[in-house]
């Protein structure tokens, strides 16, 4: 299978500004199938912004991001990247799962309905097929007995696990995690990391923005340290996290440990 050799996600020369502030100053990185890339760095270093650019929640000013062989937010016409049609963007996003810091479960739907919505509305699956998968996924994140609860009646850790099941329901080729445990009480972090660890072990390709260095050391297959809109160090997670070469990486890791 020659496709297995191609990276699932390729970012080249990605630039992004908010008004006069340049938050991404040329990001280059590849993610291969089955890889778990942890993006670490101080707040404001641009790591969350870069993650949001991968599924086009933020537009980029320059550069390309290719996921599964396609530009997420653009279409090439006569050698130039044009903004893609909204329907195309939606279709490409549907193959990229995203988990947010604030969970963002749909408040008017039960856990089960949260997992069912996108497969039924976006992929037009029949209820039986979607239901079968939703039950299986809620079981996988250990919340089958909470399937009829509304998000307001679930703990933060439970909400985040439902959010992971909701993203998996679209059978994504790539999962993005934006500080998935930062809004959780310390005692609830473990249950979410367990689900992510299990997901990584099953071969899911993941890009994770996190401050959980223990998780990064244990689960990541690659790590990148971002500082001031640039990747200053990337590669083997043990090297980046345990024996960083860059002074800025060392200073940051000294603070979070």
């Amino acid at each position: 299978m020659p496709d297995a050799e191609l990276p699932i996600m390729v970012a080249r020369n990605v630039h992004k500004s908010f008004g006069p502030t340049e938050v991404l100053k040329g990001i280059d990185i590849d993610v291969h199938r089955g890889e778990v890339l942890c993006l670490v760095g101080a707040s404001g270093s641009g790591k969350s912004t870069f993650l949001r650019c991968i599924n086009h929640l933020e537009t980029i000013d320059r550069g390309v991001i290719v996921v599964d062989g396609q530009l997420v937010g653009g279409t090439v016409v006569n050698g130039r990247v044009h903004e893609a049609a909204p329907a195309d963007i939606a279709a490409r996003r549907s193959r990229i799962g995203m988990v947010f810091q604030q969970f963002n479960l749909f408040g008017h739907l039960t856990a089960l309905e949260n997992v069912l919505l996108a497969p039924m509305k976006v992929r037009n699956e029949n209820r039986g097929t979607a239901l079968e998968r939703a039950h299986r996924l809620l079981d996988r994140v250990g919340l089958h007995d909470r399937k009829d609860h509304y998000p307001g009646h679930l703990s933060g850790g439970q909400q985040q696990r439902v959010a992971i099941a909701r993203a998996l329901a679209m059978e994504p080729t790539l999962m993005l995690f934006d500080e998935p445990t930062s809004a959780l009480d310390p005692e609830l972090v473990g249950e979410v990391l367990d689900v992510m660890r299990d997901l990584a072990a099953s071969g899911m390709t993941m890009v994770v923005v996190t401050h959980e260095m223990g998780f990064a050391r244990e689960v990541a297959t690659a790590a990148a340290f971002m500082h001031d809109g640039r990747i200053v160090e990337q590669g083997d997670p043990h090297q980046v996290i345990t024996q960083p070469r860059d002074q800025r990486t060392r200073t940051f890791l000294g603070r979070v440990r």
Partner: protein
Amino acid sequence: MSSLRTSPDLDQLVALSDTRPVRRRKPGETALVAVIAVLVAFGGAILFTNPRFDWPTVGRYLFDVSVLHGIAVTLELTVYAMVVGIVLGVVLAVLRQSASPVARGAAWLYIWFFRGTPVLVQVLFWGFASALFPQIGLGIPGGPMLFGVDTNLVVPLFAAAVLGLGLNEAAYMAEIVRGGLISVSHGQAEAAGALGLTRMQTLRHVVLPQALRVIIPPVGNQVISMLKMTSVVLVIGVRDLLGSVTEIYSRNYRQIALLIVACIWYLVMTSILTYLQSRLERRLGRSVSPMRSPQDA
């Protein structure tokens, strides 16, 4: 505590533990009740001793066929005008949230115009639409008409009334819906977008259902106020409840009695709507449990 213990009557006080305390009289309250009683008595006396109220006539026309027909017209106007108002109001609210400055500007202009002129004037305008545009059809502006029909045929008075009331209502509804849309956190739309839902699907399945909780209570008020506002269509000759009674009293000159008939029916209808509204709000409040912050569940 210490004074109680040293009191020689302690046993006497303890012996009272089985009795109920006597409520303290509030002189202000008593006076208020007296004043209201006198006013009600006077009011009642005037209502029933002044023969010009003409209660027998009120009774005779309360269930008159043309009055009942007028009630039906009033209810129809209310329903149609609210449907026009709500549908157009949602469209305007979405346009006002749009990324396009042209769309936002157009919605703003609409709301500015329809909130800035009296509904009575707007209804009159629609009633006289045939004077402004004698023909409706396809043509070149300022040039010849290629195909057209008489405005009076396409826009009968009833439709003119619905348009006048509904287009005015849409301007108010737009602001109510916009408030509801704003109340739904942006993360909800982002999560829907990340799952691959289109903007329309996100609006329909994620944002609007959650906005309803905020939108429904004020819409109830709008329905009640629309029911009464429909009476302005009298000016273009639509025979709603008020139109029917005025038509009757223009023949028999029993204005007061017939206006009382109209008031009774308006009160009956608004009372029913108020009751329904309070039930709906209670149900809404029950189904939506208070959202706890993620940490304290």
